[in-house]
């Protein structure tokens, strides 16, 4: 039984890490801010969710489960809000996206 649970943990956490890797790639390579935000929140939501799901069998106490799930829910809330705020800051400027494409020297923080 425990070997099965360990296997589940390995698979779920690896999948989560894969989502983080893909999200990071998207953050670095996607053309405009909205697409980068999508990559980032996908990594946060799915990647962290899978990591938390994978870690659940490794925690013995129900308090630990609640803690892990709370971490995921809080991260969901924060990343959703931050994405909304960033998108709202970008969206009114219609020229911003083409500008970002013309200016590849600008980093991911621009």
């Amino acid at each position, binding site marked *: 039984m425990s070997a099965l649970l360990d296997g589940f943990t390995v698979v779920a956490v690896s999948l989560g890490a894969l989502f983080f890797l893909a999200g990071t790639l998207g953050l670095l390579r996607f053309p405009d801010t909205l697409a980068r935000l999508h990559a980032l929140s996908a990594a946060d939501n799915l990647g962290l969710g899978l990591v938390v799901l994978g870690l659940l069998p490794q925690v013995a106490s129900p308090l630990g489960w609640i803690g892990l799930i709370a971490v995921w829910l*809080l991260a969901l*809330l924060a990343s*959703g*809000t931050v994405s*909304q*705020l960033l998108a*709202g800051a970008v969206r009114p400027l219609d020229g911003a996206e083409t500008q970002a494409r013309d200016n590849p020297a600008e980093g991911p923080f621009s």
Partner: protein
Amino acid sequence: MTISLVVDIGLALVVLSLALWIIAATTVYRAVIGFIVYGLLLAIVWVRLGAADVALTEAALGGGLTGLLLLGAAARLSHHECVPVFGRPAAGPVVGFRLLVGILCTLIAAGLAAVVLLLPEPAPSLASEVASNLPATGVGNPVTAVLLAYRAIDTLLEAVVLVPAMIGVWSLATDQGWSGRPGFLTPARRTSALTLLAQVLPPVGIVFGIHLFWIGADHPGGKFQAAVVLAAMWALVLLAGLREPPRVGSPPLRLAVVVGPLVFIGIGVSGIWLADAFLAYPAGYAKPMILAIEAVLTLSITVALVFLLAGPPAADRSADGRR
């Protein structure tokens, strides 16, 4: 090579290269964003070193709060900033100044490295004495015992210094703005997403802050970390525009800021009669006294941090139709 060593080396490389990136950043804003990430990475480093108390403080104060203060400063400086043309180094006194700062920082780093490398083996440590005297303080977390029993004077000065810092910020107010409300955290416009966050998160954050304060006696945590979390919740409500900050002239606000240091000093002075030394606790009462000091200090630090973030009081803008 074990896997944890690989992780540690990778972490060290990331921290070092991020530090280089911050120095090379072309605008103050980028450097500040890098600094916030740097604080969070340092927190992971402290966790790897087994210092959870320091990690919590670094993440909350070094990354979060200082980062927010620096972001505010960067926003105010952005009008005066001369952005160097990409690919061309900035000319004039800037280069000399940067060189000077770089040389001084290198000297400090070299000095620290020399001290660490020249430590005798085994390194001198008071850890065993702290551990053997821990029962006398009644608290289970050795860090809390050091901060509030063995080296209480340091903590006292640390808590008091926030009051002059706040006075320093307030003294930047204009004549019209004096005794008004601090305006820096007031939003330009309200957004629904931030409003939702400011309504959902504070109940969780307040419980978590009080939890951090309470477990500080026996586990990593304590008043400073708790105060940062509570201050963040208040700042979030202000940022979302759900509430206005109180006027800096309001007596309850001023009382809240000074009550922590006053209680600390009061208990410290009473120790002269009750326990034969300033800041000494009478035998058997150490734990309740430490808890009392931590509780009022949490309140005072929370208020002081929010008002450090909120900036100097500004002239009342409610007259000209703010929504």
